[in-house]
């Protein structure tokens, strides 16, 4: 059973003519996915315990899409994203201690406790900012891509957005800007099939969301978002085209959200328990990739287990780090409001 409107999932990973995956690459991809899973699972746990009280939008189920999308990017390449944000930062290499601390609103958080779960950013790894306004960060990625061209820096920008964002006019404006100015930007749509409780196919006038790239002349492809290799390879091709002045690419990754829209949000029956169970048991991106690795002798089960345990340990440390933080001061809020007049031109910038 697949989500309505989604293509049948590929039977095997990397079926789209995957580049070779060697053991170090397999470790990297698995570690990335496990770290997101461990982080998000801990967020669930901390929410259940009442320690985390604000809304969180978990990426459990989306790990292959996120890790596959970030793998071909350099640290200096730009990423923007959405309210479902944690994974984007983790996959781009942002240290998870300050990320966890931000979820607690602490002063040692990556945004000094000013942004929280939905507004993460870490310019040191090119993460310009997640936006909780659906589609809102997409033109920002286009602006960063323009900046890269302007400065002739060779950087690319990747905009993560969900299927819901395709209904926002600014996303279409962004596609048009990127196309007419031929900008090095990758539009990466995490299509999990639902806008909170509404089936994407019920409210979007296209069979595949990738179809929206085509009227703008943007090369567009739909890939299995549970297949980390397929996503990685599609993004790799897009990055190469972007760096080669070939302009933007639209990639639709078909994925699924294993949890509710926001963790703890009581949702009425908009999808069946069977559907969720089907995805969890047969389309879990980590399980699929582990099987792929075991089959090809890339990683033993024991090695994969050790990677997962190591990620758990990193998350333990992140929680300890977060616990050492304090409430930020009003002075921090004032600093965040406006750059001080003494701010040096060319001061701390994402470049």
């Amino acid at each position: 059973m697949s989500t309505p409107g989604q293509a049948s999932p590929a039977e095997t990973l990397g079926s789209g003519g995957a580049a070779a995956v060697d053991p170090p690459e397999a470790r990297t991809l698995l570690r990335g996915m496990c770290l997101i899973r461990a982080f998000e699972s801990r967020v669930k746990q901390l929410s259940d315990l009442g320690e985390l009280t604000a809304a969180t939008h978990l990426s459990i189920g989306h790990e292959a899409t996120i890790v596959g999308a970030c793998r071909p990017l350099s640290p200096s390449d730009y990423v923007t994203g959405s309210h479902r944000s944690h994974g984007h930062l983790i996959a781009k290499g942002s240290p998870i201690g300050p990320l966890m601390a931000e979820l607690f609103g602490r002063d040692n958080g990556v945004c000094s406790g000013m942004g929280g779960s939905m507004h993460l950013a870490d310019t040191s790894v090119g993460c310009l900012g997640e936006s909780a306004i659906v589609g809102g960060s997409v033109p920002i990625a286009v602006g960063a891509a323009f900046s890269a061209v302007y400065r002739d820096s060779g950087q690319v920008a990747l905009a993560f957005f969900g299927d819901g964002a395709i209904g926002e006019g600014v996303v279409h404006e962004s596609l048009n800007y990127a196309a007419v100015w031929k900008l090095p930007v990758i539009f990466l749509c995490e299509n999990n099939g639902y806008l909170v409780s509404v089936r994407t196919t019920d409210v979007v006038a296209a069979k595949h969301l990738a179809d929206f790239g085509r009227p703008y002349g943007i090369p567009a492809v739909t890939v299995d978002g549970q297949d980390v290799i397929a996503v990685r390879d599609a993004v790799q091709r897009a990055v190469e085209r972007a760096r080669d002045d070939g302009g933007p690419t639209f990639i639709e990754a078909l994925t699924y959200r294993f949890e509710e829209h926001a963790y703890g949000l009581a949702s009425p029956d908009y999808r069946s328990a069977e559907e969720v169970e089907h995805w969890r048991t047969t389309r879990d991106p980590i399980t699929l990739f582990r099987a792929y690795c075991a089959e090809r002798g890339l990683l033993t089960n024991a090695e994969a287990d050790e990677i997962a345990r190591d990620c758990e340990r990193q998350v333990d440390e992140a929680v300890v780090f977060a616990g050492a933080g304090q409430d930020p001061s009003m002075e921090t809020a004032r600093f965040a409001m406006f750059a001080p007049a003494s701010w040096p031109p060319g001061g701390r910038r994402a470049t």
Partner: protein
Amino acid sequence: MEQDPSVFLFGEDLRANVFGTSPGFAARFGDMRVRDIPLSEAGAVGLAVGAAMTGLRPILDLTISSFLYCAADQLISHLAKARFVHGGQYVLPVVVRTACFYSGSNGAQHSDRPYPMFAGVPGLKIVVPSNALDAYLLLKASIEEDNPVLFFEDVTLRGVRGRVEVTDEDLASRATLGEAKVVEAGDDVLVIAIGGGVAIGRQVRELLAAEQVSVEVLDLRTVSPLDRDLICSEAARIGRVVVVDPAHEQCSVASEVAALLVEEIFDSLQAPVRRVCTPNIHPPFNRALERQLYPSRDGVLRAARSVLGSRSDREP
């Protein structure tokens, strides 16, 4: 733009210089730095945010100020808040330049003066110059500013001649965003004005001078931040205040100034503060009717007489 290669200009109808804001720029600065855009204002503001986050200093020209509404989400939730929600990780040197085309029989949708609306959004600096020299100095200061600036130009002032030769003294005194200026000194009535209201204040000053009433005119220059100190000190010294603001009266800049004075210097006021704004009626297309709405010399004169009326030595 000559001094800093990271400054670029993009917006509507710039290469052909339709609205007079970019004469010869396309030829002078080239295709990369002077760009026309599709009519996608929200995308343009987002693009400016992304460019500013990554080291550029965009100037976005959105021509007519009601077009800002098309980009409201990007202006409010992104341009104004991005630095804040991300804990001050970057600077956002963005200037959005736009003009208030009122009093020209352009109909309600093209005639707004929406700077007070955006002044309700923390995180934006808002400039409304009243003369040619200030337009230059404040625009320069806005481009040099490391925070987002909305720069509103009052089109009733286009065609008004003013000094534009910039002296060394002008440059040395550098316009600072957030500093108001006493443009005409006086002692009996204080007219606090913004944009096109400043010229009206000056006219009223001349008229009342014949009656031995001395009017001081204070040009706000920036709406956000407001120069609270200068406003309060001059108002406390003079005690009789008229605030002139071409925006709609409700929640206008004049309202904010009046509230500030009531809170801070109530005991020094010798008469109620009077606002002269536009009543809460949309600008009609009909020219005669439209012109009745905006602050006028007669309206400000009436308000000035009203605040003077309660002065014991000037009973009518």
